[in-house]
């Protein structure tokens, strides 16, 4: 779990890119375009969006545990203090204010 070269560190605010394209995607729809923070850096893994097509999965992608306030994801969760944590690869993330 080498995380030295990672773009983000725990506590950093991040936004999930809002992309929609056909094919194998590991970023659930409900977090796209949403903001949260890095909870943990898991390290570098073969890219499943490449592996799914029989390719080599390289270059590896850093995988983060990203935390979201449930209330920021779903309107019906307004007022909730609960969290949803999702494993997201770095090419889906950008720095958020």
């Amino acid at each position, binding site marked *: *779990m080498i995380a030295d070269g990672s773009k983000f560190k725990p506590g950093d605010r991040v936004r999930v890119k809002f992309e929609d394209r056909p094919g194998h995607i*590991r*970023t*659930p729809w*409900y977090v796209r375009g949403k903001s949260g923070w890095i909870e943990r850096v*898991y*390290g570098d*893994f073969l890219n*499943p969006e490449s592996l799914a097509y029989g390719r080599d999965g390289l270059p590896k992608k850093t*995988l983060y*545990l990203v*935390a979201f306030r*449930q209330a920021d*994801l*779903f309107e*019906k*969760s307004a007022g909730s*203090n*609960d*969290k*949803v*944590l*999702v*494993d*997201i*690869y770095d090419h889906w993330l950008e720095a958020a204010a």
Partner: protein
Amino acid sequence: MVNTVTDAHGHEHPKNELSYFAKRIYAIRELLVEKGVITEKDIQCQIEYQEARSPANGAKLVARAWTDPAFKSRFIADPKAACAEMGIDAAAINEFVVLENTEKIRHMVVCTLCSCYPRPILGRPPDWYKSFNYRQRSVVDPRGVMREFGLELADDIEVRVHDSTADIRYIVLPLRPAGTEGWSEADLAKLVTRDSMIGVMDPLSTIPD
């Protein structure tokens, strides 16, 4: 007379037809064997391997963590090494993370994209874990889901739902039930249900009959 009764009892039984997907799977299986990619023996071995894994593995780990603080630290720091120590083969898991429940934080695991599940530790996932209902509602209304499993959480407890979308497999380390001081590890393991390690309910407080 006996035949008349059994043959004509008033309704039609559905024919035992394979579904489209079942037919497709059997066809692929036959082709793989025919082309020599895998053998019937490979398939049987894999079925036996899948069936041999069960939530009893997870329960052993949790009970040991409850009774041995040093093991608990190792289990959280390096779950795969802790599994190996207990004779549980978790090598098939890429990365394995233990989510420790506390008095103030409860974890719950889902895979909203498909059915990712720590199979070496918990065996095959239950059907409800793979259902659209659970996969949709767990992230939106985890407390409502827990309530259906009989767990009512106080408002000041924080719920953390983990959506395992990638290479990490999660298991919840539930809280040890009150009143179990001095219990043996084997008895404690009987309290650790599969569902408590997915995080939708607490462990049992008494050993089931």
